[in-house]
């Protein structure tokens, strides 16, 4: 089970702040593909993934119990 969080445009697109995915392991790429399939338009802008509060690479493997967040383009400051 993998927990994912949504922020900003992605929170509005999905209509939720977080949810859990019933998977034991998947790569960051697979997670992004799952999101695009589930929520068309998800990746219209580049979306990064944070795993356990650190930016992850596309080939990194997410394990059950990890906490993930989709990070759309940031705009602090």
């Amino acid at each position: 089970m993998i927990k994912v969080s949504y922020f900003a445009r992605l929170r509005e697109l999905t209509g939720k702040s977080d949810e859990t995915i019933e998977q034991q392991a998947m790569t960051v790429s697979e997670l992004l593909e799952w999101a695009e399939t589930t929520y068309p338009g998800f990746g219209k802008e580049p979306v990064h993934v944070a795993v356990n509060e650190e930016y992850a690479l596309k080939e990194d493997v997410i394990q059950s119990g990890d906490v993930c967040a989709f990070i759309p383009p940031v705009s602090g400051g």
Partner: protein
Amino acid sequence: MKPFEIVETPIKTEKYTDYVLHAGAGAVTVFTGHVREWTHGVRTLYLAYEAYVPMAEKKLAQIGAEMEEKWPGVKVAIAHRIGEMHISDIAVIIAVSSPHRKAAYEANEYAIERIKEIVPIWKKEVWEDGEEWIGGQKKYPEKGIEQK
């Protein structure tokens, strides 16, 4: 206060300048970022910021550590406010002290540039006739977003 924090209430600048000031500091630079009314000819009514708070605070602290490594002797405090903000409100404050002024200026500018690159905070501009989440990061970098 924490030296690297996300807050939901108005930012009081003195807290952060007091935090960085010490007997060895010969210079303190303070940057405050404010809500601007006009952007490219479009009038902003207010801004709504949100953050992935625990990660954002970690990334602010990471930026502070990068600054201390690049400019030894600086002391840093950074706060970013989230929620609804109106014209001229302070959205972000960066306070830097150093023994001499050059490092304090340079390190301060470095901090705001890094905030705009790596800290998970999002700004929505709300206008009279619409709204939009702002942001423009590049495509997924092969070596990750952290690379400078």
